[in-house]
Every structure is written in structure tokens, then in C-alpha cells.
């Protein structure tokens, strides 16, 4: 079963040899399951000069409870792209791991990376496979962003793709947010986003937007100064993906909080 000429896609291979490992292939009992599992909340992505920034808060909720304070929802998808997940946390993490393997697998088999659009389309079809579960309340919505190595203009190389439960992808211009706090994060970004921001300014803006989301959405966690839990911030540039260290995000989050002491509205 391993030596068939077959395909370069890992999920296609799995669907043949181990379909139970694909989230969309599992039989689900009827009924709503939305309140059974923790939900991950707000992710924002901002395209900047020479790349893209993605940041996510650290809270997972289950109904009115906080299920986890320090969940990590933004991950590198491969060397040049990032994926953030909102929705059912368990399925989201599983899909994200599967997506990471999918990209790495293709790269190893073919000796070349997928194009950024190819990666987004692949993720869309994986989300579409989860439609049955989504209709029963176990939806997962990712946000995908990356540095496009084939971009003619380096300024436009940072690209963002959003999805819905039926797939997608939809390319976004400038910025996007997903999750329960996305409405507030996007409103904040709408007023503050400018094309051609530097990566550092975009990083600060992402943390500001998450603060605004946490301000108005109970399911989104703000910077937790007492426990030292800060948003996860990652960048994808020509040099690859990079996660800001805890010290770096701490200093950004602390300065955002300090500024809000003066002016709560930002």
C-alpha cells in the first residue's frame, strides 16, 4: 500500500490507507455537538511590506467557561506560510497538523514546494471535508497567510486567505480576522490599517486589534499580565516564518496595555 505510484498528496494517501485519520471521514451521531468541545477564538492577519503578520489570542472557551488560558492557535504551516485556527479546538488542531504534514509531504515527494495558491486550495478542500461535522456545530475555520515566493512585486508578497465552512479560499486585501472577536478586531483594523506598514508596525497593530477584540468579546482573552500569557505573534517574510519570542510579545503587549491606561479606546 505504500509503494503504489499514487499521488503526491498525503491526505489522498490517507483516504486510501487510513481514512479514519481524516476528520471528515468519521461517522457522527445525529444532534448538535457545539457545546461539547472547547472553542478557539480570535486570529488576525495583516499584510505588511515584505511579508505578513499573524497573531492569535490564547483563550479557549467551552460555553461560559474558560477551557484553556494558554492555547496556541497560530502555527507555521511550512517554511513560508502560517495558519491560525478558530472554531472547535480539537478538530482544528488535528486539521492543522494534517495540513502541515500535507505541505511537507508534497515538498519531499516532489522536491518542490506548492505555490501559495496551491496551499490555500489544499486547505480549502480539507475544510470542505469537515462540512458534515460543521453542520452539527463542530466547525473549524482557519486563516491562512504566507509569503508568496513567486510574487513579482515583493511589496505584495504577503498574502492572506480566508475560508468558510464550505471551503473557499477567499483572498483578502490588507488584513483579515476570524473567530468570535473578529468583528471587533476587524473594526479596529479598518481604522488603523495602512498599506505598506512595516513588519514591526503591523505586529503592534495586530496586538492592538486583539486587545480590542478581547475588550468586547468575552471569548477572546486579552494580554494576561498577571500570569504572563501574551498573544502568539508570527511573521512570514522572505527569510521564512518566525515566531516572536515571549519577551518580545510581552514588551509589545505591555506597551499596548500601558497606552490603553491613558486612552481605553486606543
Amino acid at each position, binding site marked *: 500500500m*505504500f*509503494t503504489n505510484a499514487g499521488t503526491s498528496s*498525503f491526505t489522498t*494517501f490517507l483516504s486510501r490507507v487510513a481514512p479514519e485519520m481524516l476528520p471528515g471521514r468519521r461517522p457522527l451521531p445525529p444532534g448538535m455537538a457545539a457545546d461539547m468541545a472547547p472553542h478557539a477564538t480570535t486570529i488576525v492577519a495583516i499584510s505588511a511590506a515584505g511579508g505578513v503578520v499573524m497573531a492569535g489570542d490564547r483563550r479557549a472557551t467551552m460555553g461560559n467557561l474558560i477551557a484553556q488560558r494558554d492555547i496556541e492557535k497560530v502555527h507555521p504551516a511550512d*517554511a513560508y506560510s502560517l495558519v491560525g485556527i478558530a472554531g472547535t479546538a480539537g478538530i482544528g488542531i488535528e486539521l492543522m*497538523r494534517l495540513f502541515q504534514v500535507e505541505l*511537507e509531504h508534497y*515538498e519531499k515527494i516532489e522536491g*518542490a514546494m*506548492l505555490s501559495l495558491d496551491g496551499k490555500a486550495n489544499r486547505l480549502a478542500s480539507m475544510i470542505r471535508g469537515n462540512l458534515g461535522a460543521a453542520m452539527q456545530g463542530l466547525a473549524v475555520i482557519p486563516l491562512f497567510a504566507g509569503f508568496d515566493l513567486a510574487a513579482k512585486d515583493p511589496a505584495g508578497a504577503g498574502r492572506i486567505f480566508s475560508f468558510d465552512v464550505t471551503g473557499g479560499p477567499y483572498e483578502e486585501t490588507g488584513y483579515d480576522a476570524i473567530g468570535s472577536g473578529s468583528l471587533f478586531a476587524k473594526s479596529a483594523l479598518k481604522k488603523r490599517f495602512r498599506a505598506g506598514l512595516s513588519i514591526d508596525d503591523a505586529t503592534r497593530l495586530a496586538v492592538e486589534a486583539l486587545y480590542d477584540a478581547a475588550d468586547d468579546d468575552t471569548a477572546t482573552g486579552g494580554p494576561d499580565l498577571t500570569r504572563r500569557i501574551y498573544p502568539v505573534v508570527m511573521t512570514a517574510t522572505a527569510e521564512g516564518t518566525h515566531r516572536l519570542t515571549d519577551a518580545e510579545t510581552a514588551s509589545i503587549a505591555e506597551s499596548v496595555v500601558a497606552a490603553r491606561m491613558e486612552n481605553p479606546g486606543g
Partner: protein
Amino acid sequence: MAMQFYASPEQIMRDRSELARKGVARGRSAVVLSYSGGVLFVAENLSSALHKVSEIYDRIGFAAVGRYNEFENLRRAGVRMADLNGLSYDRRDVTGRALANAFAQTLGAIFTEQSKPFEVEICVAQVGATSEEDELYRITYDGSVNDEPGRMAMGGQAEAITNVLKSDHRPDMSLSEAVRVAVRALSTVGGEGGAARTIAANQLEVAVLDRARVGRTFRRITGAALTALLDGDAAGDAAPAGGRAKTPTVPTEEAHKPTTSAGSADLEGNQNEQPEA
């Protein structure tokens, strides 16, 4: 009814072994060495697109000689198995030993059950925390596995190449020293009248499993970095260690090389250049 000629099982196995051995010996050779910074693969390969050396997993690499379509099939199987196990357990649970066993089972089954054995010899290498912990497995066409002591050669006239490695290779070598030993070993065979020959940089496929790196350790060394190493430039040693992983990118132009032949001739170039093994 036609009479069946009787052939003893010994004779059948001998014939298959001979076929496979001849097939492997026709090809150009490959060398795998452990050095201070990791594991080095050097293969003589005229094609820059059809690889003899490749990545299987985080700390595991693969090198092969023989028929391209046959070892490519095994390589893909190895990548699939590694990715499946890594996803269902954890990345650390994918080991070179398990892969070597799986390759051995597959090759053994093909050797006994099918009318034509695979004409390949492969190496599965896993880089460890120190060069003593590196693992090199040689798997031959009949499914036998050997654990090699930090260096191995495969392909035509492998014995002569191994002899050079035995005398010159040390596990504490630097990368540029190791590359030069490997190239010297490869070039001792195949020259006019048994003399040494020179192998140009563009005929070499060089890659390493970098001990110091976390995550995916496999990197190809090409172009200027390779030339610097071959020239004995000590600066070349430092170059691959810094920066981020050199990941393959989307090809910007169409490949000019024809890839129509499924046999090994596409990797071996003009067979007339080759001496009889």
C-alpha cells in the same frame, strides 16, 4: 503439453542475484559518511532534477543507486510511511531503524516473489546527537540489512571506494574535509586504465543531515557553497550552518532535461564513458 524445464531454487536465486548485482554495478556510485556536523551524502549524478539523495524525515535521509524508477518507488514509500507514523504518533517516533526494516521487508518480498528483483542498493541514514549515535543502514536488493560503521559506499566498484574511505575517513572531520574525502574516493574508480579522474561539481549531488539543526535537518549543498567546499575553503564549513533551512522553491523555469526514460540510463549519462564493472 509443453515440458517445463526444471530449475533448482538455488539456481533461480543465483540468477536473480546476478541480475540485480549487475544492475547496481552499472550505475555511478554514492557515498555516505558521518562527520562532526552530521551525516554527508555524496552521489555522482548527472541530473540535477532526478535525485539519488533525498529527505525522508526530520533526521533521516535516503541515498540510492541502481534503477531510478525502482528506488524512487521505495523512496516515496518511505516518505509515506514516515509521515503516516509521525502524524499518528509523534515526530520523534519515526526512526531510521524502523524504515530500514520496512525497506528490507519490501525488497526481500520482491526478491523472492517477483520474477525480476529490484536492481537497487539503498542507504537509510539517521543523524544522532553525536557522530557515535549516527545510524547508517545498507539495504541490498535481496532485503539484507547491514549496520555500517559511520561510512559506506554503494554502486559500481563500491569495494575500491570503501577502501579509500576506510583509510581516509574519520568521524570527527569537518564538512569540507568530509566532502573532499568522499569526492576523492568516488574519483579513484572509473578513470582511464584504473587511474583517478576528476569529477566536476555539477556532476555531484551533495546533501547533509545537519546535526545542529532542530526539526528538518536535511539540506542540499549546491552551486557556490559546493564549489567552496570542494576547493577546500574553510569558510564553506560555516556557510551551511547559518541562516534558515534552504527549502526547495517552485522552479522558475522549465527543466530542460528530458525525463522520459524510466530506466537508470537517464541518471548515468553516456554509458560508453563507463568502464565495465
